[in-house]
């Protein structure tokens, strides 16, 4: 207990030092695993599309005291409708059928109204054409693409293109994993869910912006005489904003959790639940990705810049002179000058230089 208290206090004071960036292999592995599972889910399992995407008719009315699912189903089937699905949605029955013409819908409405003594105008109905969902989906995809382009442009202006790229990769990561959760769990995907997916965009980025802003500030001070590599500086910035990220995420998730709770307990199905569920899942993934995906990715991109390669090399050399006994590392570093020497450092060579930096960091502890 006291240990948890200490961690909590340290967390509160911003005294934690978790090596987010150095453990990039762990995060990449974890994210890669989740992405593969998500994509597999989307491919093999598919999404459970709601009636809005398939087309159909939905009736909803207050539950009369003496009515059962079987009872309602046989009533509606008696009206000449097939494919009847009856669901309980809080205090109401929700009956889903195949897409019916307008006249049929009125007839079913009347049958329900007569049988259960519900006034006709208290039976809600919804008729969805088969093409509607496709249109919603199309628009959502177009919106998504336009948004990504707009955001890359904006973040490139506000920060730099590498940060924009890292943020957008993290965003796609969040969307795919959220979709994967839907595929495997079989939650119904409705237009409201799409709305939730789209909102994740904003949130996922909000977090990333807070973190990147701090990284930008901290790394701006990194001159040639700096005592930290970009990796270390970024990691510091991340730890610095950790409490902020967790706080903002928690505060953002609280209202969503409230909607999810109300939507699930009071309504069972509908806009409230569909939207908040997507947001709930997406925000949790988003918090993880802004810390463990966006930043490590940014660092990988930045450490390729000659300026930071040189910085890393110099710091490593200092380290070497300070720790002469460390034979394996000096061997590893032997390759570095060559890599950095060829100005356009190939990715492979850069990776090795990064490895050396990370290694040095671990050793230091």
């Amino acid at each position, binding site marked *: 207990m006291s240990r948890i208290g200490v961690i909590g206090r340290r967390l509160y*004071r*911003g*005294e934690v030092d978790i090596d987010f960036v150095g453990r990039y292999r762990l995060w990449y592995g974890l994210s890669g695993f989740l992405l593969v599972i998500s994509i597999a889910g989307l491919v093999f399992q598919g999404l459970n599309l709601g009636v809005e995407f398939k087309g159909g008719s939905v009736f*909803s*009315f207050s539950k009369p005291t003496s009515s059962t699912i079987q009872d309602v189903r046989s009533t509606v089937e008696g009206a000449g409708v097939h494919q009847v699905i009856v669901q309980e949605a*809080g*205090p*109401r029955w929700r009956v889903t059928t195949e897409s019916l013409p*307008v006249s049929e819908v009125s007839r079913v409405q009347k049958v329900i109204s007569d049988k259960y003594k519900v006034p*006709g105008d*208290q039976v*809600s*109905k919804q008729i*969805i*054409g088969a*093409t*509607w969902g496709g*249109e919603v989906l199309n*628009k*959502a995809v177009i*919106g998504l693409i*336009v*948004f990504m382009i*707009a*955001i890359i442009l*904006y*973040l490139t202006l*506000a920060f730099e293109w590498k940060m924009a790229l890292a943020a957008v990769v993290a965003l796609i990561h969040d969307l795919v994993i959220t979709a994967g959760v839907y595929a495997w769990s079989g939650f119904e995907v409705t*237009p*409201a869910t799409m*709305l939730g997916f789209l*909102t994740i965009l*904003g949130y996922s*980025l909000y977090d990333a*912006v*807070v973190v990147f802003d*701090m990284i930008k500030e901290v790394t701006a001070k990194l001159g040639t005489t700096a*005592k*930290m590599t970009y990796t270390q500086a970024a990691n*510091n910035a991340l730890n610095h904003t950790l409490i902020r990220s967790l706080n*903002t995420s928690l*505060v*953002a*998730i*609280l*209202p*969503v*959790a*409230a*909607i999810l*709770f*109300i*939507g699930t307990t*009071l*309504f069972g199905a509908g*806009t*409230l639940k569909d939207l908040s569920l997507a*947001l709930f899942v997406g925000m949790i993934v988003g918090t993880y990705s802004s810390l463990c995906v966006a930043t490590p990715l940014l660092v990988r991109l930045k450490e390729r810049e000659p300026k930071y390669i040189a910085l890393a090399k110099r710091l490593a050399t200092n380290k070497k002179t300070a720790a002469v006994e460390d034979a394996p590392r000096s061997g590893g570093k032997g390759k570095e000058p060559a890599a950095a020497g060829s100005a356009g450092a190939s990715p492979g060579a850069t990776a090795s230089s990064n490895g050396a930096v990370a290694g040095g*960091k671990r050793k*230091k502890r």
Partner: protein
Amino acid sequence: MLLALLALILAMGATMLLQKAFVPKYALDLAGGTTVTLSPVTQSGAAPSQESLDLAVNIIRERVNGHGLADADVAKSGDNIVISVGGAGTDEVVKSVGTTAELRFRQVLAVAAANATPGKLPTAPATPVPSGSPSPTGKGSAKPTAEPSSTAKPAPSGTPAGRALSSALTAPTPAPSASASGASAKPSGKAATPEPSASAPSGQPSGQPSAPTAEDPLAGVDLTGVDPAVATQFQNLDCTKKDPGRGVQDDPGKQIVACSDDGGAKYVLEKAAVKGTEVSGATSGVDSTTGEWIVSVNFKSQGASQFAKITGQITSAPQPRNQLAMVLDGVVISAPVIEEPIPGGQARISGSFTQKTSTDLANELKFGALPLKFVQSSIEEVSGTLGADQLRGGLLAGGIGLILVVFYSLLYYRGLGLVAVASLGVATILTYQAVVLLGHNANFRLSLPHIIGLIVSIGITADSFIVYFERMRDEMKEGRRSLRVAVEVAWVRARRTILIADAVMFIAALVLYFLAVGGVAGFAFAMGLTTLIDIMVVFLFTKPFVAALAKVPFFAKGHKLSGLDAERMSREPADVRTTITQEG
């Protein structure tokens, strides 16, 4: 700063008082009602042009309003048209908006005033059309040919009748007076022949505004060759009613009755001679010789021969049977006199046009030529009880969400949390006022997606405070600055973060608002609105409030409950992070 915000809140509050607007206007998913979403279907699958959509919106609005439905709202949403009607019993809406507007050309068989009530028309009582003609039956007519320019003027300048249709190829028509004025345009050619009927013996209302009511309004109207059933319909048709019969899917193979688009006249029309799909284009322009506005119509090959045939057939017919009506969506939009046979598939309509009326007619002809077909993508009828339930659920969720955030802020930030709570309170007031005022002044309807968007935004608003507070604590920790200095230094840095983050949210809202369909736009609107309110609250309230508090000893001295106490700020020398940084 604080005063500016206070002034804003009071001003909005005063406006609410003045307008007696205290409750937001709810959309149909909360108030109950029917929403029909129509999606256009084009043959090529490409998006329809905005002009054709606008025209479709107008046609549907006319139809819906024609049904006398209160509170009907027809709006474009992306490429879709969304019709919202409050209340129940909306089957007729669904039916009326379902048909496709189509353009047809039909010969006029008979024409009469809109109804039996005289005085409805400002001039020329019997009909605004020069119905006077040496009709074969010898019945007289009300044609005031004597002074064409003064009395025979077709009443409203936009009346469909009173125009001449001539071949565009032979432009200035042989009749010199054809286009001289709106009035003389129509009787040109044959109808203008000085007929003796000017002194019609039938006692018809002949130009006197005080036309006798007792007269059968249909007297003098020749119904030869008209299907008896249609003739009865014609007699009973009253075009002055609210619904002039729009949305009637007319059968091109049958005679029909129809009203003029301004409700000023009613017609019996022959079977369709040319369908609108045969029109290849229509433009409005100024005639180079007469200087008056005209509309040119072009036909495709089949349409051109059909058009040549019909104009050839009817041009020598007596008035009004020499008129060719253009019927769009069951309403006569123009019924010009055919002055001559028009071969070649090019025709021009002249007479009493203004720039606007000629452009309108050209658009109607052009898009009537490419009738937009719509499918009813979604029909949603929400009963009053379901709407009330959803509203209750949304408000409940919002309340719980707000309480959770307030609770967390107080627990975590203690005294500073009060600032957050007060800021949230201000943001809530501003949002509520904005929603109410937008509802009453800009027809903004609060829907469930809006409410969810607003609740979700509680998080964004609170995030801004957190960013600022954490910055403040950073400053106090690192620089060991006094609270008053920290408040200012932290603000400069937090401001940038907040602005960038809010800009990202705002871009998301904008993109969603303009590109999405259905409820998404409402949700995006709420998101954008709260983002703006958030910036306003942080700049005008939170920051000045914190600065003011910094002068209060409770906070400045770091009381244990202030959220800024020494222990929480970890002012002890052994700062782990600093040590590591120095090593590195």
